[in-house]
């Protein structure tokens, strides 16, 4: 019996019969739409090989045939778990190319929505990690509370999961509804409640399964291209919102949480502290929300009159999973000539995951896998 691991044909068993191949994913609720081929000796992982491509939908090519307004609808789907953040990256890239001055109110709404999206994405992270560790209560609790944020999205954007281009080139699609402020505040109280519950559970279930597991040294994190919360958990103080501020982040007061340990537990701690920072940001945004227009121009241009000026742009944003970027090039037509999407999960799921899984125990695979806050959708695009 011969089996493929990596690109080499190897026997599934050694002479002693203790080594074997083990497949984690790709069509399993414990892994998302992503697979890892593992070579195991007893209970120990000898080598890991990521197997991407299961969720490839070809957005980069699709975007070459559509005008920016239509592309903002597609940009949601880059990451199912945080569509508004990806809307924002795409909208900023087009705004930079067209040179449109985004109205002040639209910038505040964009940040409000991006931070709410980050909160619900972190709740999914907590939920997915809980179920990976066999802690079902955490999963149900996180997804239940996430629904309160989805109710807000439904009210503001008209859809629960997909805002379908709510943050669009030139601003946002529509203004906030009446009485949104009280509703957002109410949801924030509920989120504070769940953060408290998450903290209560930390010392029991999570600590025993995650402390000292999947340690990513800072040197390796930088070498392998980790960004965002994963890099911060390894001890580097970095955040695109502070390092390369966009929208109104330079005017807001928030901290960058940093942990030194670099293990799965440190990454969980970063997540909780980031959620608190997001609540802080949303409170500031609600306090300072200005009046005015929400889109420039206020009407959607007929597709035949759209032209993107010639040029190229590279935009990077801090999405919930790390650094999400879009490179866009235009040659003066109505569609972009080339769009390259750089999702943070690509590097977290291939080099970082392979590095961390090497030498780990089988039982620790879900803990390591989910502690990286990965999204197969943004990796495969």
């Amino acid at each position: 019996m011969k089996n493929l691991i990596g690109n080499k044909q190897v026997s599934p068993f050694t002479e002693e019969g203790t080594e074997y191949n083990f497949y984690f994913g790709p069509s399993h609720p414990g892994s998302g739409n992503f697979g890892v081929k593992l070579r195991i000796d007893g209970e120990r992982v000898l080598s890991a090989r990521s197997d991407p491509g299961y969720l490839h939908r070809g957005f980069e090519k699709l975007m070459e045939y559509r005008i920016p307004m239509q592309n903002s609808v597609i940009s949601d789907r880059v990451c199912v778990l945080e569509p508004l953040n990806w809307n924002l990256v795409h909208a900023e890239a087009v705004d930079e190319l067209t040179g449109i001055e985004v109205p002040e109110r639209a910038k505040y709404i964009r940040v409000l929505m991006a931070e709410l999206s980050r909160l619900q994405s972190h709740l999914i992270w907590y939920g997915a990690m809980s179920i990976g560790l066999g802690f079902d209560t955490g999963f149900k609790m996180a997804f239940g509370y996430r629904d309160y944020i989805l109710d807000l999205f439904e009210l503001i954007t008209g859809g629960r999961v997909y805002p379908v281009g709510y943050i669009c080139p030139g601003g946002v699609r529509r203004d906030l509804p009446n009485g949104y402020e009280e509703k957002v505040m109410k949801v924030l109280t509920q989120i504070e409640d769940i953060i408290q519950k998450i903290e209560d559970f930390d010392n029991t279930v999570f600590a025993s399964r995650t402390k000292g597991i999947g340690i990513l040294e800072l040197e390796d994190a930088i070498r392998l291209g980790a960004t965002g919360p994963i890099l911060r958990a390894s001890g580097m103080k970095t955040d695109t919102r502070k390092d390369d501020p966009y929208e109104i982040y330079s005017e807001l007061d928030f901290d960058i949480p940093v942990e030194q340990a670099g293990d799965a537990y440190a990454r969980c701690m970063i997540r909780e502290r980031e959620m608190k920072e997001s609540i802080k940001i949303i409170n500031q945004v609600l306090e300072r929300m200005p009046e005015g227009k929400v889109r420039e121009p206020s009407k959607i241009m007929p597709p035949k009159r759209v032209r993107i000026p010639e040029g190229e742009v590279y935009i990077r944003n801090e999405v919930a999973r790390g650094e999400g970027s879009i490179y866009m090039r235009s040659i003066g037509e109505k569609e972009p000539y080339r769009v390259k999407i750089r999702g943070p999960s690509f590097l977290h799921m291939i080099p970082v995951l392979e590095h961390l899984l090497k030498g780990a125990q089988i039982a620790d695979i879900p803990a390591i896998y989910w502690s990286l806050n990965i999204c197969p959708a943004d990796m495969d695009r």
Partner: protein
Amino acid sequence: MGMIQTMEVLLNTLFSKPITVQFPREAIEIPEGYRGEQEYDIDNCISCGLCSQICPNKAIEMVEMPEEYKEKYPKKYPKIDLRKCCFCALCQDICPKKCLRMTKNVFLATPDPTTVVKKPMPKGGGAI
């Protein structure tokens, strides 16, 4: 978490309402501005075709009316294929006469695929 705290959480959970709603007996209210099935007012339509141009999924096609209505409606009107629709509401936003409107109807699952293609029909003439 100590034993007292655990008991506290346990008792609170025992007497608190569930987080879910019992659909279909009760449902979360759908807010105004929800993007559901389209409603189309043919009498206001000027047949500009902008909805079919902006549709990212090419779900809207401009078609002629059936023979019996051709005299009253001689132009081309949008036919919406809900199977392709992603409910982005770009057609609603771009319509200069506001004759395409998203409604709150989300109950679109059907065993009959022909009913999800919304052909242009005059009011009272069998909408689908």
